[in-house]
């Protein structure tokens, strides 16, 4: 633990490499497993990759959405604040499954026929909108936690409001917001399984299909659960290393 605190960069690098190795290499050890897992090991690997891609894409967009809406909620411009309040209220007050189905079924109707949106994209959009709403509250709390003196010092030095935000407020707010954002990200790994309802072939869908053919749900779902656990562990290691990295200013002498 001490080592990982002192070398957050290496921890991040390590968990990234671990995650990549696991995603690309997991088919090899899995294929040695007995039926029903071994013969379809590549399906598990594909499913895990889809889950991770979905998490990374929706998670990145969700962080951007969270920062924008979190700022909007603190704006002095009332209509913008109302819009952001409405967004958070709507996304947190309705089931994620409904949101996924809604995007999947309505997007093709709203968009012109020339634009085709894949099932995967629909799931990513719905997940990003959902996690963005939860991120909004974390970001807002983080920004409110930055002492006002920091802003005054930056403004007194002549930094513009935008520079003050990017150079001073945002990095400091992330120290507070990051643990909560990381939590949301770990939930997203699991929540992405709901994409199976709109026939996205991610990890849970793979498990469902394999057990439907083999009639052996126990080994199949245990394998799926193990893969999810490895993924969430990798994500939380990554984010806690990032947290240590951002914590520097608060550390006492080494």
């Amino acid at each position, binding site marked *: 633990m001490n080592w990982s605190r002192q070398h957050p960069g290496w921890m991040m690098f390590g968990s990234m490499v671990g995650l990549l190795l696991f995603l690309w290499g997991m088919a090899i050890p899995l294929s040695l497993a007995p039926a029903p897992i071994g013969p379809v090991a590549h399906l598990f690997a594909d499913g895990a990759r889809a889950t991770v891609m979905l998490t990374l894409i929706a998670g990145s967009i969700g962080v951007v959405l969270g920062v924008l809406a979190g700022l909007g909620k603190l704006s002095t411009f009332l209509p913008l604040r109302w819009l952001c309040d409405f967004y958070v209220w709507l996304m947190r007050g309705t089931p994620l499954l409904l949101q996924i189905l809604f995007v999947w079924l309505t997007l093709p109707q709203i968009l012109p026929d020339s634009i085709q949106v894949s099932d995967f994209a629909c799931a990513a959009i719905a997940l990003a909108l959902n996690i963005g709403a939860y991120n909004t509250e974390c970001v807002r709390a983080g920004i409110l936690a930055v*002492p006002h*003196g*920091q802003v*005054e*010092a*930056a*403004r*007194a*030095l*002549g*930094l*513009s409001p935008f*520079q003050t935000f990017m*150079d*001073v407020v945002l*990095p*400091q707010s992330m*120290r507070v917001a990051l643990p909560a954002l990381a939590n949301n990200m770990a939930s997203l790994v699991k929540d992405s399984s709901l994409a199976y309802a709109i026939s996205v072939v991610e990890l849970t869908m793979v498990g469902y299909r394999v057990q439907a053919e083999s009639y052996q749900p126990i080994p199949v779902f245990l394998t799926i659960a193990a893969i999810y656990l490895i993924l969430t562990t990798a994500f939380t290691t990554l984010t806690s290393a990032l947290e240590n990295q*951002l914590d*520097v*200013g*608060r*550390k*006492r*002498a080494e």
Partner: protein
Amino acid sequence: MIVPENPRPIIEARNVGKRFGNFQALNDVTATFYEGQVTAIIGPSGSGKSTFLRTLNRLEKHDSGTIVVDGITLDDDLRHLDAIRREVGMVFQNFNLFSHLTILKNVSLAPLRVRKMSRADAEARALTLLERVGLKDQAHKYPVQLSGGQQQRVAIARALAMDPKVLLFDEPTSALDPEMVNEVLAVMRELAHTGITMLVVTHEMGFAREVADRLIFFDLGVILEDTTPENFFLNPNHDRAKAFLSQVKHGY
């Protein structure tokens, strides 16, 4: 009012008023500050001295009157505000160093962003300034690793990095342990001799008396006395000033 030889006004405040709700913090304050002048601003708590200082770079917006800094009127025009803030540095009671940045980055941030200096130039300059306040060897530490006195010296270096014409000090030693007050005052004393214009809100009567060219006494949002430190300490005109002095003077 104390007017130096060959005066060139750098800050002109005319009939400045400011209220917080029902509280009249500043009432018709008029004062002109000249280039190179070191002014100590003293007075009891809540007298409006800090508020006055903070209106001069618009950390507080004044409600009435006019403030002109180096020929630029302080108003809602953001370009005016930016121009003024580039010329006016500020040192705070609680230092307000950027806690997520190293000392070096604290000092080089504003020249880098506002003056658009190259990183190498900004950091070289920051190191020179840190050497001047005696903290070159701390450049790669974070603010939390420094003592209060060291942090305040960094804050002074940070303000100087923008090459301001005026430096505002808002009770720079009030949050410090008694042992650390002198190291900050020493830096300020050295600065006062360089010809930079300084406005210092302070409770350090010794410093005011020794270093300042001019002394302003605030009470209830108005300037009661505006004179030389010697005059003020030897024969203050107002009873309020006499009462204040008798409270703070013991020990001098």
